[in-house]
């Protein structure tokens, strides 16, 4: 875009990074960025102009009805439904775009999958503002679709096989954030199988044909056994995989045809005509055959992601784009020089935009929890190769630069730091942070590789190929390593652990006995007894959450299979088993521990003020909490001000953190996933600290019902870290980041003024060295001043593009609730 260097410089000096980016990016990127419909819900509601797409549910329903009388097994029927959608949905190509593909029938459409859960379908009725006009017609279509899928959705199918007591407690919304469904949540991908350029869909189809022929021949010999009987299921699975791959190839070719029609009939600009022909050639090539260029590689990846999201709701996007697209970038930009760096940046920037616009209709509780974004799409950059050498490449830098140009809030990046990362790459990471993107978050690779080996027994070569499964958890993108469903549907609202110690497990917010019936808290005579009750409640909550997920995973291969994901996974192509089958997966589950640190500060307050100083009796405290501290403000402030708080390098309270983590990690080795592996905890919050504000009762750390909870997995409470950034790091370093849990989220706020210039970079680098030396696995930064954030609250129209780090993800500041905005402003700005 034509802008004097001066103007850009001035804007950057004023830290108006979003306006500077607008002036720096190419005309194409500027058009495509502004053309994008932001999909993240605001306060649980979709922004004006977005609509729920009814095309897909109608297609799925008509195909399901047509297949009712067919003798096909469910997995094949399901594959045919998917193929029907890919063959018939409306497709489009946006002006100036070079990458194509979208889930919905138009850019402002949010796709709704009615096959997942009747409860989700009923929510569509309550979203009239997001329904296409005329409303009466839409409601009629929704009624027909919803009626058809009532009793037939995935959740309907699995519920009769579940422990309903557990399910009811999970669905109460008090202790968990997720629904135990195989196709609900997200899935990792076997990138080592599908993204290394060795094979693509046609190669896999060839292999499937061979396996089907062999199995067919084998199953018709003079022989009978369990193994031969099982071949029938395997053949069906392979057939279903093949149907989805063939549909994927046809779908891509529909784009190729449209691109050619536009080029030949409508486009008058010769340059654009050439681009359209290239789009056509790209979609004729991939996903049928392996990519040869950066454009083909990005398009191939995009198709795979979209097909997977046609098959399941995916609220995360595990990816390692620099690692898998890097070789193509290198070849096109540096070796063959068929692309200039600027042309490559255009493609990479557009890739981010194509991802940012993806949307799937989600239940309101999920939309409320994911304020301002569609899901936690945290893409992994950096890290090491299988042999331990540095994996950073030109594409790493291109992605970090493109992110600053397009400034989308989702996807975000997480950078796998290790000692061999070059200064050039570190500077690019820093620029993104300094420019207020809130990403990349920084991950300590050596610690996390060791952690993956410790908790799940990944061999070192596998562990080194990890990607972020969602915000935080490492999961290798390998044959046995990747996780095919959201095992973190076992996400725990941990503040309930301490709350239930005071209520003997009764939840006064949802009026249900959820926790364990531990003895009345006023009868506990020692801190040790009190802590034992805490451990019992912790084990109870974790167990209630894990059991339904385990059960759903066991039921999934038969009842809720994923033929497309299976088709792009070596373990399924090889075995003929659905990708969700636990026996072919190493198992990589974790319990996301929302609202964890409240436990630590609460235990410390009780230990000090009740058991040691005896300033208050337990009965008094219990009553104060049940009454939400009403009439006891002075007492409440005593619990806030005069009890030690986590994050100040104070061994009194830090040792309580270690006791809690020790108890949780011991229990993590006792509870097992269906693959036989462990369930470590992972303290982080997404934006559960706000979502649960009205669900968690008053707590001994002085918090009242309705107050925001702490924002990070191991971040100190906002404003409670009074001793500076090194004290925070020292507290965090007392945790063993390998054996105490799966990962630990740490939010820090830094001053943009302090980070300016070369001096700012050197300060940050020193901070990062301390962080790395202390063995902390994660840190992420907000680097936007209070002044800018307050201005954005007053004048949101003017500050539409300001991005902040919420928890494990970034969002546009204006798209998050006032409560979350205030919570971010309250966080301590650390002077380095």
């Amino acid at each position: 875009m034509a802008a004097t260097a001066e103007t850009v410089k001035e804007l950057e000096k004023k830290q108006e990074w979003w306006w500077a980016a607008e002036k720096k990016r190419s005309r194409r990127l500027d058009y495509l960025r502004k053309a994008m419909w932001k999909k993240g819900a605001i306060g649980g509601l979709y922004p004006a102009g977005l609509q729920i797409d009814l095309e897909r549910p109608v297609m799925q329903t008509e195909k399901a009805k047509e297949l009712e009388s067919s003798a096909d097994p469910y997995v094949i029927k399901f594959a045919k439904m998917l193929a029907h959608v890919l063959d018939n949905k409306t497709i489009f190509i946006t002006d100036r775009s070079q990458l194509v593909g979208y889930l919905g029938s138009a850019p402002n459409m949010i796709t709704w999958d009615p096959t997942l859960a009747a409860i989700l379908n009923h929510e569509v009725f309550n979203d009239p503002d997001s329904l296409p006009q005329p409303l009466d017609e839409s409601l009629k279509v929704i009624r027909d679709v919803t009626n058809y899928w009532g009793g037939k959705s995935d959740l309907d199918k699995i519920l009769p096989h579940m422990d309903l007591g557990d399910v009811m407690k999970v669905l109460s919304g008090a202790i968990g954030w997720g629904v135990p469904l195989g196709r609900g949540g997200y899935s990792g991908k076997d990138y080592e199988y599908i993204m290394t350029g060795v094979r693509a869909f046609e190669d896999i189809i060839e292999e499937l044909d061979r396996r089907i022929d062999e199995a067919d021949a084998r199953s018709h010999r003079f022989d009978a056994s369990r193994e031969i009987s099982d071949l029938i299921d395997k053949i069906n699975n392979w057939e279903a995989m093949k149907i989805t791959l063939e549909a994927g190839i046809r779908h891509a070719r529909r784009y190729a045809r449209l691109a050619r029609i536009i080029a030949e009939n409508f486009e008058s600009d010769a340059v654009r005509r050439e681009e359209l022909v290239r789009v056509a050639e790209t979609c004729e090539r991939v996903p049928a055959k392996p990519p040869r260029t950066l454009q083909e590689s990005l398009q191939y990846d995009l198709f795979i992601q979209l097909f997977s999201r046609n098959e399941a709701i995916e609220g995360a996007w595990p990816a390692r784009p620099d690692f898998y697209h890097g070789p193509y970038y290198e070849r096109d930009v540096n070796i063959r020089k068929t692309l200039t760096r600027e042309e490559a940046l255009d493609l990479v920037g557009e890739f981010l935009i194509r991802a940012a616009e993806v949307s799937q209709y989600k239940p309101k509780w999920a939309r409320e929890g994911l304020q301002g974004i569609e899901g936690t799409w945290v893409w992994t950059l950096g890290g090491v190769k299988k042999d331990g050498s540095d994996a950073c490449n030109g594409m790493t830098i291109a992605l970090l630069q493109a992110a600053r140009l397009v400034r989308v809030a989702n996807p975000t990046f997480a950078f796998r730091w290790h000692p061999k990362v070059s200064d050039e790459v570190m500077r690019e990471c820093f620029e993104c942070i300094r420019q207020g993107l809130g990403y990349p978050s920084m991950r300590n690779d050596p610690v996390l590789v060791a952690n993956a080996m410790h908790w799940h027994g990944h061999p070192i070569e596998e562990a080194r190929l990890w990607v972020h499964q969602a915000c935080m958890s490492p999961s290798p993108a390998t044959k046995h390593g990747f996780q095919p469903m959201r095992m973190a549907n076992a996400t725990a609202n941990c503040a309930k652990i301490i709350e239930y110690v005071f209520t003997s497990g009764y939840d006064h917010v949802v009026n249900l006995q959820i926790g364990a019936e531990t003895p009345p808290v006023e009868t506990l005579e020692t801190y040790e007894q009190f802590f034992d009750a805490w451990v019992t409640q912790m084990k109870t909550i974790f167990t209630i959450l894990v059991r339904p997920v385990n059960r759903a995973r066991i039921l999934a291969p038969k009842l809720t299979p994923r033929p497309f994901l299976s088709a792009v996974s070596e373990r399924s192509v090889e075995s003929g088993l659905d990708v969700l089958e636990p026996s072919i997966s190493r198992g990589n589950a974790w319990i996301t521990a929302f609202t964890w640190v409240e436990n630590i500060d609460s235990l410390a307050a009780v230990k000090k003020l009740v058991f040691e100083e005896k300033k208050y009796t337990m009965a008094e405290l219990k009553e104060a909490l049940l009454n939400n501290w009403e009439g006891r403000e002075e007492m409440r402030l005593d619990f806030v001000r005069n009890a030690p708080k986590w994050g100040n390098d104070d061994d009194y309270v830090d040792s309580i953190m270690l006791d809690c983590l020790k108890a949780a990690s011991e229990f993590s080795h006792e509870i097992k996933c269906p693959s036989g592996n462990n369930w470590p905890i992972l303290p982080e919050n997404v934006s559960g600290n706000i979502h649960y504000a009205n669900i968690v009762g008053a707590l001994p750390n002085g918090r009242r019902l309705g107050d925001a909870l702490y924002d990070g997995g191991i971040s100190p409470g906002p404003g409670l870290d009074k001793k500076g950034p090194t004290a925070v790091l020292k507290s965090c370093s007392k945790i063993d980041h390998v054996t105490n849990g799966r990962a630990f989220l740490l939010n820090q706020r830094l001053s943009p003024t302090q980070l300016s210039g070369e001096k700012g970079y050197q300060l940050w680098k020193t901070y990062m060295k301390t962080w790395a030396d202390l063995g902390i696995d994660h840190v992420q930064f907000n680097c936007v001043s209070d002044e800018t954030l307050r201005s954005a609250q007053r004048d949101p129209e003017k500050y539409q593009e300001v991005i902040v780090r919420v928890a494990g993800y970034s969002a546009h500041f204006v798209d998050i609730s006032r409560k979350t905005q205030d919570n971010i402003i309250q966080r301590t700005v650390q002077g380095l």
Partner: protein
Amino acid sequence: MATCSECKKFFPLEEDRKRGDCVQRVIDPRQAYYQAKPVTADKDAAKCPSFEKR
């Protein structure tokens, strides 16, 4: 009865001219694009507001 085959926006498949795509230009509040939707050549176009005689 007018059918899609008589419409400017109908683009038949080479391998089966009875089927094809209805290709239309769309301009929404944010972006402009071309969309394609599969249709059959003999689809009734009488009620289609976008019908344009070839």
